């Protein structure tokens, strides 16, 4: 599944980032790499979401959220 399909309040483990090269690099520099745990803090019905990764809150657009493959880890 992708992070975009995730639910608020849940934690997920990233299995891969598949987006344009330059955005991938940015995300990886921010620490969104494989095996990193991500929590979804808030989201809009269709659109951006707020996630927490490595102690940092990030707002990411739906395009990015749809490109992050995750493994579900229900809380």
């Amino acid at each position: 599944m992708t992070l975009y399909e995730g639910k608020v309040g849940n934690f997920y483990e990233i299995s891969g980032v598949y987006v344009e090269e330059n955005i991938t690099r940015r995300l990886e520099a921010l620490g969104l790499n494989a095996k990193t745990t991500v929590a979804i803090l808030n989201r809009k019905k269709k659109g951006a979401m707020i996630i927490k990764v490595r102690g940092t809150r990030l707002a990411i657009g739906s395009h990015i959220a749809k490109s992050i493959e995750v493994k579900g880890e229900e809380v």
Partner: protein
Amino acid sequence: MGETIHVAFVGNPNCGKTTLFNAITGSKLKVANWPGVTVEKKEGQASYKDTPLTIVDTPGIYSLTCYTIEEQVTRNCVMDDEIDVIVNVVDASSLERNLYLSLQLLELGKPVILALNMMDVVRDRGMEIDLHRLPEMLGDIPVVPVSAAKREGLDILLHAVKHHHMESPRLAEGKLPFTYPEPIETKIEKLQVMLNAHYPGHHHLRWHAIKLLEWDEQVRKEHPMSIVNVADKNYEKDIIHAKYNYIETIVEEVVFYKEKKAASTDKADRLLTHPVFGVPVFLCIMALVFFLTFTVGDALKGVFEEGLSVFSGFAKQLLLGMNASDWLVSLIVDGIIAGVGGILTFLPNIFILFLALAVLEDSGYMARVAYVMDNIMGKAGLSGKAFLPMVLGFGCTVPAIMATRALETEKDRRRTMFITPFMSCSARLPVYVLFADMFFGKYAPLASFSMYVIGLLIAIFIALILNVKDKGKENDSLLIELPEYKRPNGKTIRIYVWNKLKDYLTKAGTTIFVASIFIWFLLNYGMNGMVSNPEESFGAIIGKVLVPVLKPAGLGMWQIVVALISGISAKEVVVSSFAVLFGISNANSPEGMAVILSHIRQGIPDFGMLNSYSLMLFCLLYTPCIATIATIRKESGSLKFTVKMLAFQLVLAYLVSVAFFQAGSLCAGLW
């Protein structure tokens, strides 16, 4: 005196570099709580025990790979041979992310000192950092805990700078903080040998070798040698992973009691970034800001008015007592005091506006606005991040245009620059306050507030149309860090507001001063020298040419034409022009307004609400001030773009005010 040491402050966005820079150099640069406040590098001077220091503050970056202009600025600065030592400012409460940049900086081989900032936040959150283990794990670099906001640890930091700046490159001594897995290390070594062979005496060999492995565009361009045998693919992913793996080890070893409480931010975010209420909450906050600006500001302005009228009367008496010639009395009293003094009476409104904006910016809410507005901006092909310069535009368009540097693509920058001038800046506020007060009575704040809403709607609408025209897609690639909320810092707010007030006063003393003299000249001189009847003045001659053009907008009066043209020097000048044109010492007082009204009605007998609203609309939308035009020319790097934009704004302002006035008149007629 020793030789000057050049120090660069480098770190992630919003980690407190500028606060530290201000604390050490005594500068008063703008600080706020959102990523991307600093977009230019700034230099300051300090000294430590007789050693002079030149300190460079840089825009925040997450990595030494560049995507935006501000990131490029920092990378160039860090690579500059002039920099002797790098102070890596780190947000200690967010160590895991901040250390990624630290590891990159260490690879450069320059002396690096880690300034662990926000240690107070760390303590408040019940976290502890092992200050013995951390430097060990970073290759024995000095690690100094500081609190920039509370000015703690500054001397120790400067002491470290003085003692470590001459250090021989650590990498040569084999003091690597960590190494990559074997295959990558072998490649790095091979590339170092190749670099050394091609470019003997090259600095920062290891860093460049790593960057070549990462296929860094700039480094590859600067070192055009065949590396396909070694860097057969882009190894960036592997390098990033290795770094983060090491960081995880560091964090595990040095950080204790991780995140006991960060709940207050989450609670506030539940409302402020709510999927449904987020936008209405933002609009309510902005409405509150402007409501305070108009009501509290107006309540305070009485004091200024009183002062001005006393001063004006006193100056006139003094000049007459000194037997000064008529023209001199007229220049000083009707020109300078009327033009400049009239503008100063709006100071309370400006003060409240910037106070409110400063609180917003320092609370941590700004970055949330990018998230909240992302859907709407996305439809216009822009990311929510483009909304930040627009909000800054409510204060002043010049820094707002500069802030577009943080946007990722040139296309986004241009489009944001194009629409930002429609966000109503503080200089337009006196025009609204004056004309709304004159015609809208108790609804004046509402009439003024509507200008901000209309400006915002027009800006977004134009971005939408541009996106359709360019056949652009919806933009859904927002990426921005959201800081923790915090109680606004008194000192930060003071610096922010004082800088803005100083700008306003400087503008009153320079641009508005000169413009007032110029307008006075235009009105008092004609073809045959000084004229007693303004109708024969240069101003009247020029203004009358354009009267027929502005007539359909309900503004067909030569004095209005002169005021609008002068307003291009600075928007406040529209108001000072009226003061000078009608010889009023205080345009912002009830008496002053009555005089303006009677004069205007001599030209346009039925000048009323419709005309005044049309004038406000025109002022909102037409050509921005000369300082903005110059900034846009410089930041866009294109004269063509700038001219096109100016023409567009002028035509739009004209069409909107004509359409409004004609439609309004028609409705009024039917009614």
